[in-house]
């Protein structure tokens, strides 16, 4: 028997991952050229292949201390948010959730702002951000699972309630904060910007993001099983409650580290998993690496736009929202019959 190939079948794209890997190597190099201070491709080339000594001192300093950390931060945050967004969607069996819909972003920002208000060190700020994120996502999940609406809708509604609550507390903290010193740094956070990334802040957040992404990659097959309903997962031999807890913890760990580094950069966690699923299919073995590389490239491009569209820098969080909001509308309207 032979059956015609039709569009009910998955399109295999063997070129996808190699293409994304190539883009992830080339884009950062191109990005080194972009910025207020003009650096020629030749200088970038010399810097990469002959070391910092081959170019003028100021060029080397700009590349080493400003552009390179920022490029790495953009890529890591984009990849981290895309991977954690995929994890949330799988753990909650709901492709409409992401870290800022279920309140993780707002909770983590609240925690971080509290840390800044109290004048705590970078480690405590990050820890408070993680705690804030965990608390909001846990509350959103429990309220959502007890609400009388459809489960998917309830989670989104409970998440928006939790984020509103976190934002109101954040406003209170802003009101209490020192207008000369603490307030600007909190406001910078909530806007989402990579302008203040430096080597030390990068090193501090990069490790949790990388560690979390590796852990979720190891759990990639379990992410598939978690999208099934709980009885199904149990009958396949997986404890869904335990793995859901683990996955949500790790995803929140990544998110809070990304938020500590770049502030509130929304919509990546929602958009990129969908793009990755559209290109590579739903199987997390294939879509997770695609989501990570796609997310990294996406935020790198958007950050390049943020720092080169105008003489004044545009907060990158504003730009991702500019792309993300219409995307979410299209998703809601065109959602395939599930």
């Amino acid at each position, binding site marked *: *028997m032979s*059956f015609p190939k039709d569009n*009910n*079948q*998955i399109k*295999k794209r063997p070129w996808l991952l190699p293409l994304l890997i190539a883009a992830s190597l080339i884009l950062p190099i191109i990005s080194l050229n972009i910025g207020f201070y003009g650096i020629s491709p030749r200088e970038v080339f010399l810097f990469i292949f002959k070391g910092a000594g081959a170019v003028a001192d100021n060029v080397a300093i700009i590349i080493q201390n400003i552009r390179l950390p920022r490029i790495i931060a953009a890529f890591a945050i984009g990849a981290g948010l895309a991977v954690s967004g995929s994890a949330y969607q*799988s753990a909650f*069996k*709901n*492709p409409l959730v992401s870290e800022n819909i279920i309140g993780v972003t707002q909770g983590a920002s609240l925690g971080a702002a509290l840390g800044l208000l109290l004048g705590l060190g970078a480690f405590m700020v990050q820890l408070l951000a993680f705690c804030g994120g965990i608390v909001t996502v846990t509350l959103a999940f429990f309220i959502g699972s007890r609400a009388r609406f459809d489960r*998917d809708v309830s989670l989104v509604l409970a998440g928006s309630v939790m984020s509103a609550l976190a934002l109101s507390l954040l406003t209170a903290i802003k009101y209490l904060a020192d207008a000369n010193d603490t307030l600007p740094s909190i406001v910078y956070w909530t806007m989402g910007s990579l302008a203040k990334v430096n080597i030390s802040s990068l090193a501090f957040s990069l490790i949790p993001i990388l560690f979390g992404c590796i852990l979720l990659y*190891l*759990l*990639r*097959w*379990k992410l*598939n*099983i978690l*999208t*099934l*309903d709980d*009885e*199904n997962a*149990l*009958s*396949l*031999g*997986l*404890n869904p409650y335990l793995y859901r807890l683990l996955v949500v913890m790790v995803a929140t760990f990544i998110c809070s580290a990304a938020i500590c580094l770049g502030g509130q950069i929304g919509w990546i966690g929602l958009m990129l998993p969908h793009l990755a*699923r559209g290109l590579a*299919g*739903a*199987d997390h*073995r294939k879509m997770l690496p695609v989501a990570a590389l796609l997310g990294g490239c996406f935020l790198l491009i958007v950050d390049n736009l943020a720092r080169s569209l105008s003489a004044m820098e545009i907060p990158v969080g504003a730009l991702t929202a500019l792309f993300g909001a219409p995307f979410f509308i299209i998703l809601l309207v065109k959602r*395939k*019959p*599930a």
Partner: protein
Amino acid sequence: MVREDNLELRVENICGGYGGREVVHGVSFGVEAGEALAILGPNGCGKSTLLRLLLRFLVKTKGKVYCRNINIDTMDRKKFARIFSYIPQSDRMQFPYTVLEMVTMARTCHINSLASPKKIDTKAALECLERLRISHLADSFYNLLSGGQRQLVLIARALCQGTCVLLMDEPTASLDFANQELIAAAIRLLTKKGKIVVFTTHSPSQPFALAHKVLLLDNGYQIGFGVPADILTNRSLESVYGLPMEVVSVTDRNSQQHKICLNL
């Protein structure tokens, strides 16, 4: 008879339900390898609850279940998944998995915690699709299949899990006639391979066509267990369904005898 030790699956006086409410009151039966058991009864009689108790989704308040003389309550989830598999009613998914990916999920109980299925697991999944004659659907999206095809995929998944007992929740409930026949053929194929198939149904004629044994339930109580011809009589069916019923024998043009339950 239930206490015989050579039975593959032996259920002794199990009770249980949701929360504090007991829905199933003392059910006992035994099935040999290669037999299909139909759990029959009207809506709300506790069929699904019994299935959920057997699958350990719900906690039993009383009773024991043995598979090859091993108490299933002593096994961890992973080990249990290698002995009992579950074929739910086929729902659409939120996520666009392919048929092959869905079936490969059955290998979860055979691989390590942080591992992913390897080529050998994919090959096993393909073989199960082949056995149910749906290997041409391997790369199709599960969500876009018909109800009958989705049900077959879930049967292939249970087959790929390599268990000796397969439990199906109303496998033919929402299917048209041709698709019901596809599922019936799959059940016969499984029992021929020596598997035990336990399925729930609310069609009183189905046990005659498909099952070696039938368990008749009413209101959570066991009315009868045994060969369909012994258990499904005019009297037992009338008492369970509260309708005037008759079991009739018909002979088809190939001189094959069939039994059918009619509501008079």
